[in-house]
């Protein structure tokens, strides 16, 4: 339904839904990571600087690690996300929805060099915009996707009301519509909920306003089988 949702079929015959992350949130995550890396380098760098020549050597190696290995280390051993991605609720997965593997993570992070080309992810951004799954070149080669960890809209449970059977038989699709209305009712304003309830006169009959809303909630309660 949504073009940023990607369905992944599993061997069990069901489809898992992954929600893809776009360029903006990924860029923000990268900026946070960059900041964190600079802080780590700054703090450790001051300490290493006091060690003299050996410290300089360690600083160069540290920077090498932060530049090339930091994303892979976090993606593979820390739940698929660098701290920046984690703070924005993002994570890296294989396209089949499983955790990212070491070689895939290395591939996507080494190819970062080309995605960054010519400056500030020029190539990567173009690739992401041309690609259905917001993949930069590294993601395409590694077969990985960046997704949101949790669904953005958490559906609420259907609010409790005295169950009432619908006055006419409902198709599955109509039942689903009533249920969706009921689970959203809590997040709508009273007025909007009443307005929406008026759109189903066959179910609400002559009732109007708050009564029509309650009537739909009651039907929803009946549909999920409360009080049966």
């Amino acid at each position: 339904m949504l073009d940023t949702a990607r369905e992944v079929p599993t061997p069990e015959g069901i489809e898992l839904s992954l929600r893809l992350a776009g360029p903006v949130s990924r860029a923000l995550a990268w900026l946070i990571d960059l900041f964190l890396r600079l802080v780590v380098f700054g703090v450790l760098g001051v300490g290493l600087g006091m060690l003299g020549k050996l410290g300089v050597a360690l600083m160069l190696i540290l920077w090498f690690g932060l530049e090339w290995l930091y994303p892979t280390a976090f993606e593979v051993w820390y739940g698929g996300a660098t701290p920046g991605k984690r703070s924005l609720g993002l994570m890296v997965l294989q396209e089949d929805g499983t955790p990212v593997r070491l070689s895939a993570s290395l591939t996507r992070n080494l190819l970062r060099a080309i995605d960054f080309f010519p400056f500030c992810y020029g190539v990567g951004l173009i690739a992401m915009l041309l690609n259905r799954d917001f993949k930069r070149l590294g993601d395409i080669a590694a077969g990985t996707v960046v997704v949101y960890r949790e669904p953005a809209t958490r559906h609420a449970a259907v609010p409790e009301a005295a169950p009432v059977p619908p006055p006419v038989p409902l198709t599955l699709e109509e039942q689903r519509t009533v249920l969706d209305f009921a689970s959203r009712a809590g997040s709508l304003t009273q007025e909007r909920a009443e307005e929406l309830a008026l759109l189903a006169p066959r179910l609400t009959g002559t009732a109007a306003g708050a009564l029509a809303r309650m009537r739909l909630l009651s039907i929803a309660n009946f549909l999920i089988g409360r009080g049966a």
Partner: protein
Amino acid sequence: MKQQDFEARFGARWDQLTGWLESAPGPARKAVATGLDAAEVPARYREVCQHLALAQDRQYSAELIERLSRLALAGHQRLYGAKGTLLAPVGRFVLAGFPQAVRAQLRYVLLAALLFFGPLLLLTGALQRYPEFAYVVLPAEYVDSFEEMYGEDTRALGRKRDADDDAVMFGYYIWNNVRIGFQSFAGGILFGIGTVFYLLYNGVVIGTVTGYLVQAGLATNFFSFTSGHSAFELCAIVLCGAAGLRIGYALIAPGRQRRVDALRGAAQAAMPLVIGSAGMLVMAAGIEAFWSPRTELPAAVKYGFGLTLWLLTLAYFTMMGRRGAA
């Protein structure tokens, strides 16, 4: 079945699986906490998948479907995302996987070697006759700085007089050389152009420097510096290049696959070469920083050391991992 009954009947079983999945991975500790034995998890996961399919088909509320899909996704990731410890694969990789991968990509390795050693040898030879050509290829200061680094009065070979000490250079070589290796691999995704450029460029520069220093009579100094780390470093350049060419060629001629799929397969096949090369470059950096600049060792010792490493490297790539390989 109404949704309410459905949830009442199976809710506890879902919660059990949720609890098992949420507790950290590892074989021993879960069974006590959740009452679910690890051996039952796959069956329980398939049950949840079936319940999810039912819930979707029966148009149960979005909340329930979401709860079940989240559970199914977590189970899917745990069951199919097999992750082992790192140490055993590392040993296997060094003893067999890396040389096997190199042999499997032999065509690309040979092509990369040609692109790199071709201009290197060509320029080394050409500069014996036309030494001034070095100034066409490289800026004059650059050529002069090389003369200084390998001149007769240098105290550490391969360094300028005011250069830093061994440890600093070690850090620098890692930071710089491994990065170049990674970049020449990554350049392969531009249809191989980036990789070809890196290989030719490095071949031309190294060939020019070699040729110029040899004709200037500094061959002993230069080779006694470079011979130690040359085996690891030059082979690693070629292997990173081969990895880049592999993915570049997959994009140019994907065969009977979509370009995306060909690229993915190529990246997977090429990755061992890049990882192995990075290891070789780190070892080369160690030799280059701590062994190669020593002027107190006779040149013959350093040549012998370098030659031994070349023989060992070639033997490693041709002979290791033969047994048990398909």
